[in-house]
């Protein structure tokens, strides 16, 4: 049965192997470039132009890392569509189920061997990609610090393994139920894309209750924010992120020490026209804001929780598949 599984899978394996080899080679090159850039532009920069050279480092690798991350997130969806969906649907379409399910092997056993062998291959391919990218982008991630960002979180660490197992089994089961290869492929890609949008945007942040603390506004906190806005009734700090953590809101209102809103009026004495001086002045005003976030120490718990959730989904779908193939097919 393993021979037959391999024989039928050979072409897909070669295509996937070639794609994997190309991407792996690129990731190795990219990893080398990032390491070199990190050593020369971030660590070894001349003190007078460190700010610019570090910003250039981040800017130079932003696009390549983002593109490769998207590819690694997309890989499980493609595996689900091209390996999973045809697995049973193609047999039903060409009626070869009538040939193979009448050999001396039960169809549950047939499905079990296929699911386990190709499922492991799917997990291995995605795992290898994730490992390479995690290594390749590690210096960049460390410097930029956005590891909770949707595109980064799903393409690093252990979660891609869960995506691969889930998407593969989803493909198999949708093909088994729909009995049509092309329609199943489309549905698998659609469902996987929806999950990859909904989970990071609406679900992941609520898996553990976030932590809220009061943060003092000073030059350091301003350096970790994208901007600061003022009007006559309130002031806001925008895009503040404690390094390594995951900020759950992007705008935070700034208050005086007594809890009253800080306003443009109160800031007037700090306005000199030189931004650096103004921010230093602002930092001495004893201001604070509420910051709600997921601490950086939760990165790995989040990774393992999401891996577990997708693994449980994959297992549940498999159980359903074994039931369906015995009861409902043909």
């Amino acid at each position, binding site marked *: 049965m393993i021979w037959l599984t391999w024989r*039928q899978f050979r072409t897909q394996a070669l295509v996937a192997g070639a794609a994997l080899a190309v991407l792996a080679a690129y990731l190795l090159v990219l990893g080398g470039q990032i390491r070199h850039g990190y050593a020369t532009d971030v660590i070894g920069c001349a003190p007078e132009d460190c700010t610019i050279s570090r910003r250039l480092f981040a800017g130079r690798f932003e696009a390549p890392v983002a593109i490769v991350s998207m590819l690694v997130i997309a890989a499980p969806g493609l595996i689900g569509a091209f390996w999973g969906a045809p697995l049973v649907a193609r047999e039903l379409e*060409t009626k070869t189920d009538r*040939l193979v399910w*009448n050999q*001396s092997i*039960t169809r549950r056993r047939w499905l079990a061997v296929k699911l386990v062998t190709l499922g492991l291959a799917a997990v291995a391919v995605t795992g290898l990609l994730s490992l390479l990218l995690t290594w390749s982008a590690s210096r960049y991630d460390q410097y930029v610090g956005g590891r909770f960002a949707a595109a980064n979180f799903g393409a690093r660490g252990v979660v891609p393994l869960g995506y691969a197992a889930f998407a593969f089994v989803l493909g198999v089961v949708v093909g088994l139920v729909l009995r049509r290869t092309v329609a199943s492929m489309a549905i698998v890609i659609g469902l996987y894309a929806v999950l990859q949008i909904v989970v990071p945007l609406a679900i992941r942040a609520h898996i553990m209750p976030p932590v809220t603390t009061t943060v003092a506004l000073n030059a350091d906190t301003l350096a970790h924010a994208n901007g600061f806005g003022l009007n006559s009734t309130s002031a806001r700090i925008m895009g503040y992120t404690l390094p390594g953590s995951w900020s759950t809101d992007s705008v935070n209102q700034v208050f005086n020490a007594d809890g009253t809103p800080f306003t443009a009026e109160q800031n007037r004495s700090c306005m000199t026209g030189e931004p650096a001086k103004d921010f230093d002045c602002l930092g001495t005003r004893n201001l604070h804001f509420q910051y709600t976030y997921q601490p950086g120490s939760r990165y790995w718990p989040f990774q393992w929780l999401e891996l577990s959730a997708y693994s449980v989904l994959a297992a549940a779908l498999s159980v359903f598949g074994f039931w369906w193939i015995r009861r409902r097919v*043909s």
Partner: protein
Amino acid sequence: MTTVIQTQELSKRYGRRTALADCTLAVPAGRIVGLVGPNGAGKSTLLALTCGLISPSEGRITVLGSPPAADAAQLARVGFVAQDAPVYAGLSVADHLRLGARLNPGWDDGLARRRVERLGLDPAQKAGRLSGGQRAQLALTLAAAKRGELLILDEPVASLDPIARRAFLYDLLDFVGELGVTVVLSSHLLGDLTQVCDHLIVLARGRVQVAGDVADLLAVHHRIDGGTGALPPGSRVVHTDRGGPAVVYSPEPIAGAERTDLEDVGMAYMMAAEAAR
């Protein structure tokens, strides 16, 4: 007499459509069984139930004493060639034999190789490039070389031209003698089956119309030309062709009746079922 297939009030429905109704049969061992009926009569449904590809809506079926496809051991005892003899288009003839060898503990590799050689199939040829007849032969080889006790062929010659059809059927006859298995083969053409089978089941409109050994069927059916007069008790007219001869069932001999042949008997039952529609 041992039976290989035993069904009791077997029915299969797809939604509201009844494909097979109330089918009670006992197929004896060692026969070449012809299953005949018009298109849509339920032949494929009955055969798919027999090999366990589908499960019945109602009733019971046992094949060689067990429920069909109950486990790997039961699957090993029944060889099946589905309609249109599906094979893997991308796999070569040799790959198919290897598939058979890997998936069947009782695989008879010598038999399979001899047969492929005798049929002149190129082992390196992709199965998708074989002719319809060659594909049917490959599928039959695969089903036979697992050395089961029952071989089921669903419309094995439907897609073949008349010459390939004859060749396939006569080859099958030889082959079956060598294997010593019970064979069930279906066709919508009675002519295909009368050449080879010694047990006939006529299926029409989802029901079994008549079933029995060919010799027994011929003994109790008679052909009467030119109007049926007084018939002996216990007899009945199966079907009368408009103005033509009548086929009559009667366990007793009928004076003036002629011998009939299998083609007439089968056709009479199919026509009668059609007329009752």
